[in-house]
């Protein structure tokens, strides 16, 4: 069972706004791992996450989650199955309190059943949020907002959490904290797929990674393998 990937993407094409954003892409995410997606700004990472989430649909190929084909399902069905996305730029509900944002995370029928348990989990993970639960989301700092966004994602009771641009625009000390959180989430048995620009740090912290360029996977492997790869070293480590 452990060998079967939780998410399996096979040969998908995705068109976005009239042009092709993803070309014959295949990848998989394994149970319980932290898998990273690395690539430049327009490489198609967000489009890929949106396609997994059902916001876009592939014109070709299939996406299988825990053995079920989800490539034709709508976002609300996919979230209920256990895939949640923490979107780029966090996209909290600005006029809502921290608490209401978290509650919105538990909207689906499956998540509502586990609301109290997940709320406790989020407060254990980010004790700060417990004190700030009445604060409006828009008045928080970037790092705090990212905590709310990740917390909101966990409220969906996910089996797979996808975090887009996990540390973009955050102060180094917050970045460290977020990466620590990543390990804690993983330790709770939640599989993580995250998008990062910080390649050095990512290849230290992730289990495996995919490098995506103009809508195609160009390299993949364990973080260790990629760290030793000649091309990766040249492109991202400058040696």
């Amino acid at each position, binding site marked *: 069972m452990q060998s079967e990937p939780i998410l399996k993407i096979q040969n998908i094409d995705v068109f976005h706004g009239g042009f092709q954003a993803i070309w014959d892409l295949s990848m998989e995410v394994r149970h319980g791992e932290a898998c990273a997606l690395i690539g430049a700004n327009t490489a198609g990472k967000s489009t890929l996450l949106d396609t997994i*989430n059902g*916001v876009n649909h592939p014109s070709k190929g299939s996406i299988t989650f825990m053995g079920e084909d989800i490539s034709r399902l709508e976002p609300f069905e996919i979230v*209920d199955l256990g895939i949640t996305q923490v979107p780029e730029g966090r*996209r909290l*509900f600005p006029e809502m309190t921290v608490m*209401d944002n978290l509650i919105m995370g538990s909207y689906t029928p499956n*998540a509502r059943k586990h609301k109290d348990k997940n709320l406790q989990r989020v407060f254990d993970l980010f004790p700060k949020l417990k004190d700030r639960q009445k604060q409006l989301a828009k008045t928080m700092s970037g790092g705090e907002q990212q905590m709310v966004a990740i917390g909101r994602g966990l409220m*969906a009771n996910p089996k797979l959490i996808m975090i887009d641009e996990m540390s973009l625009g955050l102060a180094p000390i917050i970045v460290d904290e977020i990466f620590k959180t990543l390990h804690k989430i993983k330790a709770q048995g939640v599989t993580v797929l995250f998008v990062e620009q910080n390649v050095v740090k990512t290849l230290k912290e992730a289990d495996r990674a995919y490098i995506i360029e103009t809508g195609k996977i160009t390299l993949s492997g364990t973080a260790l393998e990629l760290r030793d790869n000649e091309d990766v070293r040249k492109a991202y480590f400058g040696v």
Partner: protein
Amino acid sequence: MSGDILTPILMGVMLGGLYALTALGLSMVFGVMRLINLAHGDLVVLGAYGSYAVLTMLGIDPILGLVITVPLMFCIGILIQKYLMSKAVTIGAEAPLIIAFGLSLIIQNANQIMFSPQSRGINTAYSQMSFHIFGRQLPLIYLLDFIVGVVVMLIMQEFLKRTYMGRAISAAAQDTRASKLMGINTKRIYYYAFGIAMISAAIAGTFLGMTFPFTPTSGTTFLTIAFGAVIIGGLGSMMGTFLGGIILGVVQTLSAHFLGANAQMLVLYVIILILLAFRPQGLFGR
């Protein structure tokens, strides 16, 4: 009597509660779906005719009759969103606007056919009564207008804050993409949002019909009142819409008091124009 400024202010404030209620549905549909519902005024009139029919044909008190008209208008709202608007948005940004305009014409003409162009009023025993406050005698219906406006606004606010569906409606209004990612079926939430807007239209129409005479073309006036409250108060904030309605009511009654009944709408339009030029987000808007 022309020195008595308190009477028009009191009447304006009370009417304002009803104006806010009239604006509520317009504000909600715009806030959630980004749709300017040009048919809103006519749907309010439809609510008024609904209560008129319930009273004259079935002999049921219009306030009790809301038990019939409110669910009916709720269903009409869902049907409009489901079969007209949600299809129209896929065509382009102008399509829902044109459909709303068409809907406005259809409702106006349907009301003319069903109820004739003649002016009507919803007359009950208490719509002729008066009450006393600060030594002044005022129509009881104005007080009812205000109370109903406040109560409906408060219920709506609690609904939006405390229930999953209410929160989902607010969430969809604030960030549609993020709300989809939270597992909200935004399409369905839009049906309910339009339906709920029509609940407020049914109530507003009923009380407008008890306060003023109306004809099948009164929708234009009601739409202007709704737009006025929303422009003054600022879109998206319930408190803003409420205060916008009150200001609108007071401006209307005061200008009628000082300049005569013919001037009241003129002054209102001028104030709305000035506000749009200098503070387009409204007095209480963001």
